[in-house]
């Protein structure tokens, strides 16, 4: 009977411990982060992009990356996707006869693929060694190879498929766009925006870029307006051009709490490879769960205390078994 009662006590205590540990209330709810006030970013306007890929070449050069070949002759840098050696790429949407630019049916469109510099990046939350960090001022999501352990959790976690690993090297690094932060000290800014001939990729403060994006989508398609080039707030390089047939959606305004790189398109964003993301970031969900369970190690220590107390009473069996054995050995 005693044994049964002890067992039931154990069941209750252990069960309570497991239940508190596993289904604790979200005591440490972590809100989705938003963009820092001075966040830097890009505005990519697909209706202005002519697919010249000058930005792809400039990115290669700025980041000192080797060419990647996908044609037989190995003459030109022709990456088919971003990789550990290609941080920026212009991809093409094609449909039917491909007659009309920026038409979803029988048309084609371009889309830039590069780091979105999320307000609440999954890669930064995932990285166990702070090799992925978000600058508190500029909001640039930076990578530090000297800290990186190469676990590639960032590669798996990123909703945009941006951090990529160099699988062909015994000392492979993660490769991703860092908004050319290494070029700022020389008075430069993001190479892709610097070279863009049409202003399809525009560099600047995210808040300015968001205002510019909203200005554009409020215009009447077919009217003419002035489009800045290079850098918002830099020397005037603007030109006059017709207004595109914009979707009423600034991609990156709210996705996962917002991104610092914003996008405009005439073709459905999912069709051009931009995932449909909720306003709540997965980093916030993950960290809320994690810190509710382990915040300050409060719960683990409480459970450890309870289990130590129980184990201390029950561990006599072990002593007895050892005792038996000593007797057996001596006999």
């Amino acid at each position, binding site marked *: 009977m005693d044994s049964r009662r002890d067992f039931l006590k154990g069941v209750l205590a252990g069960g309570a411990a497991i239940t508190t540990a596993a289904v604790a209330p979200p005591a440490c709810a972590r809100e989705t982060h938003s963009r820092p006030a001075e966040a830097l970013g890009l505005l990519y306007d697909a209706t202005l992009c002519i697919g010249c890929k000058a930005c792809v070449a400039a990115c290669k050069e700025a980041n000192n990356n080797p060419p990647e070949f996908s044609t037989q002759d190995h003459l030109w840098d022709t990456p088919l996707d971003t990789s550990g050696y290609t941080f920026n790429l212009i991809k093409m949407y094609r449909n039917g006869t491909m007659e009309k630019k920026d038409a979803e049916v029988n048309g084609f469109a371009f889309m830039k693929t590069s780091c979105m510099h999320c307000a609440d990046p999954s890669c930064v939350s995932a990285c166990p060694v702070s090799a992925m960090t978000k600058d508190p001022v500029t909001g640039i999501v930076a990578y530090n190879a000297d800290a990186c352990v190469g676990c590639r959790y960032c590669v798996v976690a990123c909703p945009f*498929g941006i951090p990529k690993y160099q699988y062909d090297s015994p000392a*492979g690094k993660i490769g991703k766009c860092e908004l050319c932060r290494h070029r700022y000290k020389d008075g430069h800014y993001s190479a892709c925006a610097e070279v863009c001939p049409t202003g399809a990729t525009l560099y600047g403060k995210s808040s300015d870029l968001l205002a510019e994006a909203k200005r554009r989508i409020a215009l009447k398609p077919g009217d003419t307006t002035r489009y800045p080039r290079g850098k918002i707030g830099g020397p005037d390089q603007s030109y006059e051009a017709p207004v595109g047939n914009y979707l009423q959606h600034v991609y990156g305004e709210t996705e996962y709490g917002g991104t610092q790189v914003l996008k405009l398109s005439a073709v459905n964003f999912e069709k051009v490879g931009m995932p449909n993301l909720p306003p709540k970031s997965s980093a916030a969900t993950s960290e809320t769960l994690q810190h509710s369970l382990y915040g300050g190690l409060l719960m683990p220590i409480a459970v450890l205390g309870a289990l130590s107390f129980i184990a201390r009473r*029950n561990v006599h069996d072990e002593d007895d078994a050892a005792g038996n054995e000593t007797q057996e050995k001596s006999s």
Partner: protein
Amino acid sequence: MSQQQHAAPTPIGGSLMNAATLVCGVLIAIMMSILLVRFVFGLGAATNVNDGFSWGIWVVFDVMIGSALACGGFSVALLVYIFNKGEYHPLVRPALLASLFGYTLAGGGIFFDLGRWWNFWHIFWPSYSNPNSVMFEVAVCVTVYILVMWIEFSPVFLEKLGLRDTKKKLNKVLFFFIALGIVLPMMHQSSLGTMLVVMGGQVNPLWQTPAVPLIYLLTAIIIGYGVVLFESCVAAASYRRKIELNLLNPMSKIMLGVLGVYLVVRFGDLIIRGAMGEAFKPSVMALAFWVENICFIAPFFLIGNVVARRNPARLFLAGIAIMMGGILLRLNGFLIGYEHYTGHGWSYFPSFPEVMVTVGMFAVEVLGYIIITRRFPVLPRDDAQPAY
């Protein structure tokens, strides 16, 4: 309560050179040569992992599944020391040994996959470590747990070495390490599931849920019992020993109880989230979901009654079903149910060398188990088996 007489653990003895150890040796040699290629030429030279599936079987099998299959020690300790079921004491050492090996290998195996492994210590270094990262918690917990298990298991070596005083001193504080040895796996086995959360919608809703820590924790406990069933049957068959039916029968009943709780949580969560529809789509993911859950339901049919639970073949099959279910749950979450948002051009199937490394890791485990049970007091002495 503490008057139960257990057969003292004794070494099995016998030769270490036989067909099984030889095969293990060859498999380990193959693994080493593949790893040489991997460390000289990079991950791409040996594996098929890519940017769409950056985690292959070296992570999902060797580390995640490997550690889950090593939960026997944790599950039995929970039973013996927390629920005070002293009669299961003879199962503690063999289960702990398997856990010790499983975890040490899973912890070591992560180095094969780490692209910049020489920086590994950064995880524990305060200026680098990121407590927001689920992987940080898993890595720290697993490392500490491996140390704790070596301490828990050290009485076996102390016995062998005749250091009885040291053993006595250790026994006084052993309860703390036993408690730690239960809290730590609870923490990281649940967190292994939480690792999916940051991947967001890239993981199918059948496996992406805020309840994932509880789901992984419960299955880790169940797998622990499943592995004990499996290993007891294999050890009994290969060492021609009596099978511990008097223990396995009631233990498997407890396992069914936890399994019932798990199934309620698993399907309750799917229904509450309205994700059940995914299971009825004509997709590979839906099929994988059903195979996984049939494995978890099968033990109720295999060992649902006392008569069936006295049948070693049925216990063995139930153990295998549980292990399969646990393997599939993890494989489904991290590989089969995972799809990169950015396109469907990615695919992954392990390369032959990749598979041979996983096989080699298994061989290390089997070889280690054979050597230790033959040379160290782990398995209960057969002739002293009390007749219950």
